[in-house]
């Protein structure tokens, strides 16, 4: 397959932007955010408290 000069340049630019975006998106999947983690632990402790109350009644 042969591309002309401008097609080659635009393919290179589009690829580069896609790679930068993909790498950025994958970075979010590397691990949890601290606030997400705090929210999760708050929710699980609230559930645990509700469970305790329920069993006391």
């Amino acid at each position, binding site marked *: 397959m042969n591309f002309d000069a401008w097609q080659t340049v635009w393919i290179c630019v589009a690829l580069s932007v896609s790679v930068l975006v*993909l790498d950025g998106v994958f970075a979010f999947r*590397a691990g949890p955010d601290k606030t997400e983690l705090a929210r999760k632990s708050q929710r699980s402790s609230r559930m645990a408290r509700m469970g305790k109350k329920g069993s006391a009644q």
Partner: protein
Amino acid sequence: MLGQLASPPKFHAVASWLWVWLLLAGVLLLGFGLYTGLFLAPVDGQQGEVYRAIYVHVPAAWMSMFLYLVACGYAMLNWVYRSDVSAVMMRALLPTGAWMTALALITGALWGKPTWGAYWVWDARMTSELLLLFIYLGLIALGQLATDPAKADRVLAVGLLIGAVNIPLIYLSVVFWNTLHQGYSVSLGGSRIHPDIAMGMWLSVLGFWLICASTVLNRARRLLVQRRWR
């Protein structure tokens, strides 16, 4: 100040706002660099319009080597101090480095076809850059092999430092061997690129650098949370 950044809570706090600002600055600079390079820079006398691939190929190729060297710096810090921050930084740099290496190889191949008549030749520069991609992929796999994170960090640090031999090989390949790839256009002594063409390239390099730094920091702070607070 830099010493304080070795403390995980401090590093996490700084990285959590810094990555956003680096990303914004990087996107702006890259956008401006590409606009300057693609629309304002003059046509090259020898290559015509296709030379404009430098505005993404050169930043990607430089980042591929630069990120590896930074990871080696963190590997040495990790070897000495065994800190969590150096370990997550070392790990966070590898995927971005691998992406940049793949991008440099693909954009180089696309540029090679109209310029040299082939997408790929087993030229010293291209072969050593391909070897860098394999090193990155091998190190990413190596970092996930051991179940004990501290042991995995040590193995990764050694692997990184051994693989560093390839970086001067890539850089000097155009001097050691008679390659199809062109020699230095930019060195410590100065640049042989016309200023009207170089302007966009420097802006793109800075844009790539800031975007990569932002991605690495975002990944590192998440790896840190996973390692310490989960």
